[in-house]
């Protein structure tokens, strides 16, 4: 059963709305975007065939308003809704409501979203089918014996909210004596963030690496993997740099982890694009979770496989078969993605705000920039602080990293503090260059990665630039005759 999708409504904003729109329009389809008024001048709104304003009690609330978005889609003649990532992307009720309204949800089935959205259920599903999961204790299995079962696993332990995600409420316990106190804290955080205080505990892998595998499944039962991505460079459990291939894996390990991911997706009857995340350490890997959507870091996979993941999502949603086999999916060269955030690395990465007064992206060979901002944009605290993704492709890791560094250097972005220089320092770091990264890497190397203070010649240049660019200051200087000015310091 195939159904041609002619018009797609994109229920998202920022760089991902622009990214999805690009493929929708390039494939001859109409692209409709919804937008909150803060995003009225965004690249996606400007490029869309039509744009529908949505409102909400908060700006984020507008993008979470399923009924309003579905009404906008119906009114604009959309055949399908692409949710992007975040917001409604992993909301099974939204996926159902889209289908009930007679449109196609570009993503997996509501059942898949529900299965993988419940981390405890997902883990049990994966374990029951023989795929590796970390030794663990699940509170729901028997709440009375939960602390005892946790202790029996032995430290270090990782406590997670059962309903969680995105690193919130996670706690590492190295000293078993503190377990009860940490459980209490994790429970209260889980309650606060997710309205659910149930917990589960896993054996914590020291210096773990985050390795995930892109999968695609069609409606005819075929599932392929599109190789792995390593996303170990993180701060506060949020990814900062992603790359493929992972520098950690041997060819055999790569084969094993990618086949496990495809196997999990196949077992779940998974349709459309998804990502199976693993924790890797000491030569072993464990299932972490499955994300039932397009990921932020999908471009690195696109650059090494030559596939357009959004185009694949659209074809799958139309009911077309994949049309290629696993052996046809090649991993060529190396790709790396840098997330450019509006944040201040010197102040513990707190978000920054301001107006993008000057903006220029690199146009270097092998470099792609997925951006959600245009010059003149005001960056507020209303949304996620990610401004753009700078993605570089090279014949090998060295060339990809060199191109990424050059692209950062080319970038001009004035008007607010970003993590650009911090990213450059990470790329220039010896440990990063050797591939010895893990999820605690940024914290461990914080001292080496701290941005040094400007030296004296730089300070002189900065003062000169600010002074010469200030018409009032120049006029004041001009008003003092050169002869007197030459006397300089003694005039005071």
């Amino acid at each position, binding site marked *: 059963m195939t159904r041609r999708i002619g018009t797609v409504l994109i229920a998202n904003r920022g760089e991902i709305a622009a990214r999805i729109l690009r493929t929708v329009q390039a494939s001859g389809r109409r692209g409709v975007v919804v937008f909150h008024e*803060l995003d009225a001048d965004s690249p996606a709104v400007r490029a869309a065939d039509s744009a529908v304003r949505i409102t909400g*009690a*908060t*700006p984020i*609330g507008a993008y979470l308003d399923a009924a309003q978005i579905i009404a906008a889609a119906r009114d604009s003649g959309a055949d399908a809704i692409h949710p992007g990532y975040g917001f409604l992307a992993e909301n099974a009720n939204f996926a159902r409501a889209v289908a009930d309204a007679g449109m196609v949800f570009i993503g997996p089935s509501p059942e898949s979203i529900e299965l993988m959205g419940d981390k405890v259920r997902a883990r049990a599903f994966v374990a029951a089918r023989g795929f590796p999961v970390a030794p663990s204790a699940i509170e729901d299995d028997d709440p009375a014996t939960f602390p005892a079962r946790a202790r029996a696993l032995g430290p270090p332990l990782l406590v997670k909210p059962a309903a969680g995600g995105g690193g*919130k409420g996670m706690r590492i316990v190295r000293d078993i004596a503190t377990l009860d106190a940490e459980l209490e804290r994790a429970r209260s955080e889980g309650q606060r963030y997710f309205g659910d205080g149930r917990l589960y505990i896993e054996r914590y892998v020291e210096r773990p690496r985050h390795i995930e595998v892109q999968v695609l499944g069609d409606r005819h039962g075929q599932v392929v993997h599109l190789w792995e991505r390593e996303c170990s460079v993180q701060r506060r459990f949020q990814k900062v740099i992603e790359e493929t291939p992972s520098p950690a894996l041997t060819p055999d390990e790569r084969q094993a982890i990618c086949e496990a991911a495809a196997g999990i997706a196949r077992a779940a009857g998974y349709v459309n694009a998804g990502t199976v995340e693993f924790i890797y350490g000491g030569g072993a890997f464990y299932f972490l979770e499955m994300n039932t959507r397009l990921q932020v870091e999908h471009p690195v996979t696109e650059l090494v496989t030559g596939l357009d993941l959004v185009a694949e999502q659209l074809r799958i949603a139309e009911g077309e078969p994949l049309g290629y086999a696993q052996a046809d999916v090649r991993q060529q060269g190396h790709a790396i993605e840098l997330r450019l955030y509006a944040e201040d690395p010197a102040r513990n990465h*707190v*978000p*920054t*705000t*301001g*107006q993008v*007064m*000057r903006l*220029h992206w690199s146009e270097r060979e092998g470099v792609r920039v997925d951006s959600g901002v245009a010059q003149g944009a005001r960056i*507020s*605290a*209303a949304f996620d602080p990610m401004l753009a993704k700078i993605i570089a492709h090279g014949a090998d890791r060295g060339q990809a990293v060199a191109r990424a560094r050059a692209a*950062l*250097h080319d970038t*001009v*972005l*004035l*008007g607010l*503090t*970003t993590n*650009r*220089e911090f990213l*450059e320092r990470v790329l220039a770091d010896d440990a990063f260059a050797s591939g010895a990264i893990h999820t605690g890497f940024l914290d461990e190397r914080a001292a080496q990665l701290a941005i040094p*203070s*400007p030296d*004296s*010649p*730089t*300070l*002189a*240049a*900065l*003062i*000169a*630039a*600010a*002074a*010469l*660019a*200030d018409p009032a*200051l*120049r006029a*004041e*200087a*001009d008003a*003092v*005759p*050169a002869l007197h*000015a*030459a006397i*300089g*310091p003694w005039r005071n």
Partner: protein
Amino acid sequence: MRRQFEIDGLTLDAALLRRADGYALQWAGDTQAVALSDPRPDGAQTLRVGGRAVAVHIAREGDVTFVQIDGRSFTVRTIEPLTAFAHAGAARADLVARAPMPGTVVSVRVQPGANVSKGEVLMVIESMKLETAITAWRDGTVAAVHLDAGQTFDRDTPLVSLTPEAAE
């Protein structure tokens, strides 16, 4: 033509001087010829300091100059001597709670005119996906609530003001 320049937490005193053949910068006991070219089509300008020339990108907004130099971006705040003096004299920090970081107002708990005790929650804000309560920093009366629930704000935005304390 003397100013203070705030860069990366430092406050630097310097002066721009007019010379017959251009400008000179006097800073840290040194005086060097300086010049800034007009922007090229790509927006870059050539900055000369003494014998050195570098490409810079510059944008200005009020008293703040954003400068990108050799792949690094800096924020330079220019302070006129009079303004610097006024800042020092008008430390009325006890009157207003300012945003510690950018965020969104989750809820407003008080109305103007309300009497509050130290520690009482005035407003709840959300930044970086974490909720933070803004509490009264002393006993007093609410003079103004500067934002409504749902509004977003930048760092240092006034959130809630208390009336001045009665003279003792």
